[in-house]
């Protein structure tokens, strides 16, 4: 085995950081809904792809700038999240059952996407895809750079909100002990609706940046589940910064495994890291 050049290693680390940013952005809403609402919302992946396809459609058919589609998609998906939470609460769906229900919903979203856009590959061709920055022989494509920036901004912003605002404190209190929080005047029902809407809105944001960087095909939905789950679990449920940090670690580790050893080792990396973490932090939630 010949050791890779510094340029190759640096470019691979950069590539891993960008991919980690995407893991973090997808994992953010998933981790919050799991940690704070007690719902393992597999539909989150379906919403990410639905948003990506809608962004593709709005851009390619109606000529809307992909970033401007956020203005439409984020509120629309927020409303969907609110309705979903209302339905799950109305039927008192438990944490385990939420996994089954949302899996079914994801399959339905996949079928819907396939019905509308067919199973063929769709690629969002925009000026953003052509832009890249070069520095010391390293290349940073604009869509990936935007994804990482937005992922960090969203995670940081939500962390600040959760830590320093009354709303954030109420959400944390609700997740910790809902009846006691209610006794202190926290409206758990309204907060749950707000949180669920926000998580699905985050899925919409992730979808737009996913469409900017990746080619779309409906069946890819499930290929992201494993690695993003690993990032969320490593990062800590309900922790806004966790999925991003874990995603970056996984992304860089995968990229280095590809650069130094073999690309076929990459899929082993995320779960190996998760197992190691669980071994050393068995009580980690």
């Amino acid at each position, binding site marked *: 085995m010949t050791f890779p050049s510094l340029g190759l290693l640096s470019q*691979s680390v950069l*590539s891993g950081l960008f991919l980690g940013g995407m893991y973090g952005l997808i994992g953010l809403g998933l981790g919050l809904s799991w940690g704070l609402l007690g719902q393992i919302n597999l539909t989150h992946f379906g919403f990410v792809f639905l948003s990506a396809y809608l962004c593709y459609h709005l851009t390619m058919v109606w000529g809307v700038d992909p970033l401007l589609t956020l203005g439409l998609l984020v509120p629309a998906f927020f409303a969907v999240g609110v309705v979903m939470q209302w339905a799950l609460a109305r039927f008192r769906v438990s944490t385990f059952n939420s996994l089954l229900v949302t899996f079914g919903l994801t399959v339905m979203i996949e079928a819907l996407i396939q019905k509308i856009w067919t*199973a063929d*590959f769709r690629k969002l061709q925009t000026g953003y895809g052509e832009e890249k920055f070069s520095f010391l022989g390293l290349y940073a494509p604009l869509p*990936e750079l935007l994804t990482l920036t937005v992922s960090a901004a969203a995670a940081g912003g939500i962390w600040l909100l959760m830590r320093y605002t009354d709303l954030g404190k109420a959400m944390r209190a609700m997740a910790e002990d809902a009846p006691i929080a209610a006794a202190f005047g926290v409206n758990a029902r309204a907060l749950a609706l707000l949180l669920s809407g926000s998580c699905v809105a985050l899925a919409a944001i992730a979808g737009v940046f996913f469409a900017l960087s990746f080619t779309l*095909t409906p069946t890819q939905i499930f290929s992201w589940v494993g690695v993003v789950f690993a990032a969320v679990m490593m990062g800590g449920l309900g922790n806004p910064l966790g999925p991003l940090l874990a995603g970056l670690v996984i992304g860089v580790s995968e990229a280095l495994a*590809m650069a130094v050893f*073999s690309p076929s080792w990459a899929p082993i990396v995320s779960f190996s890291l998760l197992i190691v973490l669980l071994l050393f932090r068995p009580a980690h939630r």
Partner: protein
Amino acid sequence: MSKMAKLAAAAAIALGALGVLGEAQAQGAKPIVVGSTLALTGPLSATGLVHKLVGEIYVDDLNRRGGLLGRKVEWKLMDDQSKPDLARTLYEQLLTADKVDLLMGPYATGAILSAIGVAQRYNKLLISHTMGIPSLAKYDMHFPAWSLGPNPQATVPTTVFDAVAQAPKPPKTVAIVTSKFPSVHFLSLGAREVFKQKGLTEVLFLEWEFGNRDFGPIAARVKDAKPDMVWSGDIGLEGNMLLEAMKKIDYVPPLHVHTYPAPGPMAAAPETDKALSLTIFEEHAPFTANPVAAQFVKTFKERATAAGLPYTAVETQAAASFTAWRIFEASVVATKSLDDRKMADWLKTAQVPTIQGTLRFDRGNNFGDDLMRIKQVQNKAWVTVWPKQWAAPGATIKMP
């Protein structure tokens, strides 16, 4: 009414009734039911829908020409959802519950292997569209429509080598990168051997798992290895993803060959210009000099456009599908029978003219000649560039 008039009326009624009966008898002849599955949903459905459309075009045309043995042909198609295990169940159901007369194979190697298992159990003939690994197709009544030859891991890379040797700058070094998807992985391993024998120096060999998300590090390693040629054992969109990743690090590969890319996206993207790939048919002369092929190209374009398919050109998949139905028709017509054994025995010694060339089935596992050709993306369209007798008029290999 006079007696004569009554007789005339009775005769007219009788004649009319006879006419109606005769017509009813002709129309009422039981149709020949052909059963098959295709991946109409699931990960393989983009290509599965191409095969569905081709089957419909062929059966419509066949019935317009009077059907087979004086009977209409009815195609009973089921959705195997891209799952080989479901394909097995559905083929069993087609034979036992639906009692179809004949079988037609599915698309994709996994589903074909499942169908072969069922066909073998019931001694049924099976003509398959795209069997990618000939060594696995051991059933003696299985016949492939995709003319890979019995030993594609040696013959296909040889054809590729012969083609790139004609390039303005023939390669001396090669990077072989490949998906672990079975039907491309074994071709890539064959390419390693063939290129070594031909004197090419391998500067990089990499494998990735099918479903890989990040091609950035792979692109960076290819760039670092500075090969004269890249052999990319990819399937579906993997080739596009690799080229996109290369573009992001400002790297344009020299000669680059892709095994089974999705034809539409590979032809359309800006970074895929001059990509080379494998083919059995492209919609230009000399292929379209065959009037059947020319008509098929025209009909396919119309029907694919109406069906909303994003890529409406006839290429390997559609041509293999059309060929499968052509082999099916030829074997029924030649044997004047629906007897699976008779049809299979005839095919073993037959030469069937098809739109991809004349097919025979007298070599290993009923495979015949390797008719694979080399095509290249030029001006956002695929053109055959090798061998010369199948190249589009004036087309030669161009460097990126």
